[in-house]
């Protein structure tokens, strides 16, 4: 199967044809995919070289002239390295852009910690007004990229990853989707975590919500799910554990509830290897997820979720 990143340049190249406002800003990474588009639109496919402060600043300047910039590099160099440009050149200047990242939390484990960005969504949470899409399949990535570019002058982050579910689901760029209904807890599976969650909760009496747009957080969907499934909530995110715990707590502020936030740990592993090995180390493998979810949800009856019967 192709990856989300494989879809990025073809989708955005089509958007360049469809919408004269669209401009792509790159910092070398990903440039080959835009070689044809650059020939067709030399003034709207811009590669600034390995200069990430300029990458975001130039995107902001394009937006000030009325363009819709699509700004792309690895997450660590798009959100973390030029964070003040994201905060000031976009937020404080009151202009929008679509930031599209690749490499995610540990898409390239052999590349080491310098190319890992598990904190990207948490960092954006310190800022106002960002929409954050975390697709779980290349088809969903394509849909969400189109939503992002079409979202007026909004600030939108699209987090592409090599991690993927086997099958795509319909996504609308806003709401969580109910994938399974139960009575003993709600599990929110974010993007590429869904397949592991479905396997881990097989036979457990829990509701599973699928989240591909995590900001704004779909508080209504979570509240609605807890009416039948109770207010034990487990969030499973492919980035820093607990990133959405505050959002879930806020959604349930007026009812007693418990929230467990699972995801990528803060500790630097100093390990290379494979994505699967890193998922296991962070407790995001099916067996560990089943233990953690089963041991938490439905805590009213001794901490063990009821088995669907």
């Amino acid at each position, binding site marked *: 199967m192709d990856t989300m990143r494989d879809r990025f340049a073809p989708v955005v190249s089509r958007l360049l044809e469809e919408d004269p406002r669209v401009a792509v800003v790159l910092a070398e990474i990903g440039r080959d995919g835009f070689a044809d588009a650059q020939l067709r639109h030399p003034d709207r496919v811009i590669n600034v070289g390995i*200069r990430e402060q*300029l990458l975001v*600043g*130039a995107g902001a300047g*394009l937006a*000030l002239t009325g*363009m819709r910039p699509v700004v792309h590099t690895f997450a660590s160099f798009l959100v973390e390295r030029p964070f003040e440009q994201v905060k*000031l050149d976009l937020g404080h200047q009151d202009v929008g852009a679509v930031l599209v990242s690749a490499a995610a939390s540990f898409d390239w484990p052999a590349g080491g910690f310098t190319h890992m960005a598990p904190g990207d969504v948490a960092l954006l949470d310190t800022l106002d007004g960002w929409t954050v899409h975390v697709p779980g399949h290349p088809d969903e990535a394509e849909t969400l990229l189109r939503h992002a570019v079409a979202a007026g002058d909004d600030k939108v982050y699209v987090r592409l990853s090599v991690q993927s579910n086997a099958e795509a689901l319909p996504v609308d760029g806003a709401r969580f989707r109910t994938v399974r209904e139960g009575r003993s807890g709600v599990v929110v599976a974010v993007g590429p975590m869904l397949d592991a969650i479905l396997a881990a909760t097989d036979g457990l009496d829990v509701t599973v919500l699928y989240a591909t747009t995590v900001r704004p957080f779909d508080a209504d969907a979570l509240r609605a799910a807890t009416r039948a499934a109770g207010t034990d909530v487990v969030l499973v995110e492919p980035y820093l554990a607990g990133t959405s715990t505050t959002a879930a707590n806020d959604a349930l502020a007026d009812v007693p509830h418990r929230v467990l936030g699972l995801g990528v740990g803060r500790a630097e592993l100093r390990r290379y290897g494979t994505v699967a090995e890193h998922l296991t180390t962070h407790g995001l493998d099916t067996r560990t997820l089943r233990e953690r979810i089963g041991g938490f949800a439905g805590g009213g009856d001794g901490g063990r979720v009821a088995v669907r019967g």
Partner: protein
Amino acid sequence: MTTTTTEHSRPYTHGDLPRLMGLMTGDEKHGPAATSTLDVLWVLYDQVLRVGPERMDDPERDRFLLSKGHGPMAYYAVLAAKGFVPVEWLPDFGSYDSPLGHHPDRVLVPGAEIGSGSLGHGLPIAVGTALGLRAQGRTAPRVWVLVGDAELDEGSNHEAIAFAGPARLDRLHTVVVDNSSAGHARPGGIAARFEAAGWSAVTVDGRDHAALYAAFTAPHPGRPHAVVARVEPKSA
């Protein structure tokens, strides 16, 4: 609500600027640090920039980006003199209800193309502005950005300078107000830095209006243009 120069008994001149600044500072005498940008700003707004209060939504207007947002009294005084900002706003400078802060905010200040304060943001944004105008086929508007000599310490500027020359952004202009405030600098280093990246560059007396005008309007086909405007040292 905008007070224009025509409501004033006569158009404001350069000679009115100390009084306008005094509305903010409480004193009509200002040291070199407060006025380092004053003559550069005046010549640009009075003779060079094709802008005006009535043109702020005109996509064909020139863009002036004040990157060095610190000490903006001279900027506000010029914006007031040119009718962008009501003179009545000046005395409340920095107060809670004033649109005029100690660093400008483009959302609040009529005529301000960018908000600034943190150094090293204006030049990269100016590069993007020039790229955006070029992508839309708007060849008339010129983009100007004002930076300080010490501001050039910030590496983000060098990302922008190094890109803009080879990208042949000939609508882009940088004026560096050099009041020798950088902690580590070599004489002539500023113009040389721009020239090494393929810019046209000229160094002039930042108090000499005729020299500034000549430098601002010098042809620079195919290249972005930098003007280093030397003024009294900040520490003098």
